[in-house]
C-alpha cells in the first residue's frame, strides 16, 4: 500500500544491500548499441567474464549508421570498425544483434518498444541517456555509461542509489497543434534542466491518460533533459493494447496473466510522493527552444528573454546562449529563419510523429532555402510509413526520405549541420555543436512545428496549419 511504481519495481528487483550502502539491482532488459559497448565487451574479454544473461540482452546499430548509402563496408572507416566490433562481440558473447540487414534494426529506443521487449514493471538499462523513453510503459529505465554496461553484461546487475519520486500531473486537454513534445518542453522550461536531479518523474493526469504510447514515449524520453534519469507513466489499458500481439509479448493465457502483474505494478492510488507538480495542459502552446539547453525555451507566441529577466547568477548563461545563437532579446521567436528541418531521433521518429508532420506538409513545398530531412526511427516505422504513403507526401514536399538511425540528432554519421546553419529539429538536445557543426544552431520543437517551419522557412505557429481535432 502507498507504494509508487518506482518503489514496487525497486522491491521486486533488489538483490541485496551492498556494503557501500547502494542497492544491487537486477536489470531485466539490457539494450546494447555500437557506441557505448565496444570497450565494455573488451573489459569482459580481458577479465575472462561472459555475458551472464544473453537472453535478456539485445543489440542493434543506430548511432553511426549512414541513412543514405548503407552498403558495407561503409565509406566511413571508423563507423565500419564500430559496426564490425559489435558484430564480433555479439557473436562471441551470444547476444542477438539486429543489424542493417534485419527488418528489426532501428534506434534502440524505438525498436525495443515496437518489438514488445519493453514491458511494464521491468528494470531496463542501456548505454544511452534516453533510455528513460521506456518508462512510458511503466518500466524503470535509465541510461548508464560504459563501465556500467560492463557491469550489466557481466552480472545483469547495477549498484545504484534510491531515487525520490515527483508526480507531475498534466490536467485538461491539449489544444490542436499542441503535442507531447510541447508538454515535455514546457515541463523542462518550468522545472529547469537540473530540477529533476535525484528524482524519478512520474507523469500522469488527463493529458497523459489520453496519450498514445508514442506520445508517452516522447514525454518520458526527455525526462533526462530535465535532470531526471528516470521518467515513467503508470501502465494502463492503452499500454496493454499496444503490447498485445507484439513479437516479444506473451500471448494467449499468458498475456492475461501478464496484464494482471503489469497492472499490479502501477502506483497505488494513495501512493506517497516526495513532490507534486500540476500543469494545466489546456493552457499549453507550441514550445520552441531559443538557447543552448532544452530548458531555454519560449512558447511560439512569446519573445526571446533578456539576461535581466533572471537572477544575477543565471545571467551569464543567457548571455552566452544569445551570443551563440545570434538571437536578440525581445525579438519574437516566430520568424527566426531556418536552414535545415530535421524530423527524427528517439524523441520523435515514430509513426504518429511522421503522420503529424505529414499532415502539416501535405500538398505544400519546403521553402527553397531549407533542406528537409525525415529519418524514421526504425526500419519497421519506415515500412509502415511507406505503406501509408507518408514517404510520398514528404518527397513531394521536397523532404529527403532516409534509412533508420539516430542521424542528425547527434551527427555521428554523415548527416550534419554545416557552419552556422540553424536547424528546426524534432530531436532532444540543442547543446552547442550537438548536430555536428561546432557553430551549428538547433531549435527544438515538435515534428509538426518542424514541418511548419520547413514550409515557411522560419519558425511559425503550426496551429494555423492543422485542422481542428475531432470532437474538439
Amino acid at each position: 500500500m502507498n507504494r509508487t511504481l518506482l518503489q514496487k519495481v525497486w522491491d521486486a528487483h533488489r538483490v541485496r544491500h551492498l556494503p557501500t550502502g547502494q542497492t544491487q539491482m537486477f536489470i531485466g532488459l539490457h539494450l546494447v548499441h555500437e557506441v557505448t559497448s565496444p570497450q565494455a565487451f573488451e573489459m569482459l574479454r580481458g577479465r575472462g567474464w561472459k555475458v551472464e544473461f544473453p537472453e535478456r540482452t539485445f543489440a542493434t546499430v543506430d548511432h553511426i549508421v549512414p541513412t543514405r548509402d548503407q552498403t558495407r563496408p561503409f565509406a566511413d572507416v571508423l563507423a565500419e570498425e564500430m559496426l564490425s566490433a559489435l558484430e564480433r562481440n555479439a557473436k562471441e558473447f551470444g547476444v542477438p544483434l539486429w543489424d542493417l540487414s534485419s527488418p528489426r534494426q532501428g534506434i534502440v529506443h524505438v525498436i525495443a518498444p515496437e518489438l514488445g521487449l519493453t514491458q511494464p514493471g521491468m528494470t531496463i538499462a542501456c548505454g544511452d541517456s534516453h533510455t528513460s523513453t521506456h518508462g512510458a510503459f511503466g518500466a524503470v529505465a535509465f541510461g548508464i555509461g560504459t563501465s556500467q554496461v560492463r557491469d550489466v553484461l557481466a552480472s545483469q546487475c547495477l549498484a545504484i542509489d534510491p531515487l525520490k519520486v515527483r508526480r507531475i500531473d498534466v490536467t485538461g486537454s491539449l489544444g490542436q497543434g499542441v503535442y507531447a513534445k510541447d508538454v515535455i518542453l514546457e515541463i523542462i522550461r518550468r522545472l529547469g534542466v537540473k530540477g529533476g536531479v535525484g528524482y524519478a518523474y512520474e507523469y500522469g493526469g488527463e493529458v497523459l491518460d489520453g496519450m498514445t504510447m508514442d506520445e508517452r514515449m516522447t514525454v518520458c524520453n526527455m525526462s533526462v533533459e530535465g535532470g531526471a534519469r528516470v521518467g515513467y507513466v503508470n501502465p494502463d489499458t492503452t499500454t496493454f493494447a499496444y503490447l498485445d500481439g507484439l513479437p516479444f509479448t506473451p500471448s494467449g493465457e499468458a498475456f492475461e496473466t501478464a496484464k494482471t502483474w503489469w497492472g499490479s505494478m502501477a502506483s497505488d492510488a494513495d501512493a506517497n510522493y516526495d513532490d507534486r507538480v500540476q500543469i494545466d495542459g489546456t493552457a499549453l502552446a507550441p514550445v520552441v527552444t531559443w538557447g543552448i539547453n532544452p530548458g531555454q525555451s519560449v512558447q511560439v507566441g512569446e519573445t526571446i528573454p533578456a539576461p535581466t529577466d533572471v537572477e544575477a547568477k543565471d545571467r551569464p548563461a543567457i548571455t552566452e546562449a544569445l551570443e551563440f545563437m545570434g538571437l536578440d532579446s525581445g525579438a519574437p521567436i516566430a520568424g527566426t529563419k531556418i536552414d535545415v528541418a530535421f524530423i527524427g531521433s528517439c524523441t520523435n521518429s515514430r509513426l504518429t510523429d511522421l503522420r503529424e508532420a505529414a499532415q502539416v506538409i501535405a500538398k505544400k513545398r519546403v521553402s527553397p532555402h531549407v533542406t528537409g530531412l525525415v529519418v524514421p526511427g526504425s526500419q519497421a516505422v519506415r515500412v509502415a510509413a511507406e505503406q501509408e504513403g507518408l514517404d510520398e507526401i514528404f518527397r513531394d514536399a521536397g523532404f529527403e526520405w532516409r534509412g533508420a538511425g539516430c542521424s542528425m540528432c547527434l551527427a555521428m554519421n554523415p548527416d550534419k549541420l554545416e557552419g552556422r546553419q540553424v536547424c528546426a529539429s524534432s530531436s532532444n538536445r540543442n547543446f552547442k555543436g550537438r548536430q555536428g557543426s561546432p557553430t551549428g544552431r538547433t531549435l527544438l520543437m515538435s515534428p509538426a512545428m518542424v514541418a511548419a517551419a520547413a514550409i515557411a522557412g522560419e519558425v511559425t505557429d503550426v496551429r494555423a496549419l492543422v485542422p481542428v481535432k475531432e470532437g474538439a
Partner: protein
Amino acid sequence: MGQGHAVPKIERITGTAVPMRGQDIDTDRIIPARFLRSVRFEGLEAHVFEDDRKALVEAGTLHIFDQAQYQDASILLTNENFGCGSSREHAPQALKRWGIEACVGESFSEIFLANSTALGLPCATATPEIIEGLMHSAEEQPCLPMVFDLHALSIQTGGQTVEVSMAPAPREALLSGTWDATGLLLSQFGEVRAIAKKLPYVTGF
C-alpha cells in the same frame, strides 16, 4: 570471478586546480560526439572541450584547458549541473586521461557522477560560496596546491580548510576500493539467480 583485478583505494587527491566556470556544462561540450567514433577510450584526452577551445582561439583568447598554468592541474572545479546530457562515459574518461583526478563542484548530473565513480574519479560538492572561493584561489594562484581528503571530506589549501560533501555510497566505494563494481556484483551470484527466478517476465508468465 573478479579476482586478480586490483582496484586501488582512493583516499586523497593532491594537486593544483583548474577552475571551469559555467552552469550546465554538458557532455557534448566536454567531448563532442564525433570523437566517440572509436572502439577505444585512448586518445580522448586530446579532444576534451575541443570545440569550446577552438572557438576561444578564434576569438583571440585561450580556454582554461589551454592555459599554461593549468596544464598540470588534477582537481577540476565546476559550477552547477556539470556533465549533464548524454550518458557517454567518454566525458569523464577524457577528463581523467587529460589529468583530472577529482571534480569538485556545486552539483553534478547523476549519470556523470556514476560514470566518474566507476572510473575511480571522485566528484564532491560544496556550497556556491566555497566553490567561488576555491575558483578564486585557483585563478589568483594557479600553482597553489589543494589537498582533497575523502576521509575528512575537506579541501585544504593555502592554510585554510573547507568542507565538501559526497553521497555516502560513491565515497565508501572509492575509500574501500570497490568502485569497479563488477566483482562485487558477481560475488554472491546465487542471490541474483534467485531474484531472476521470482520475476514472472524472466521465468515466463
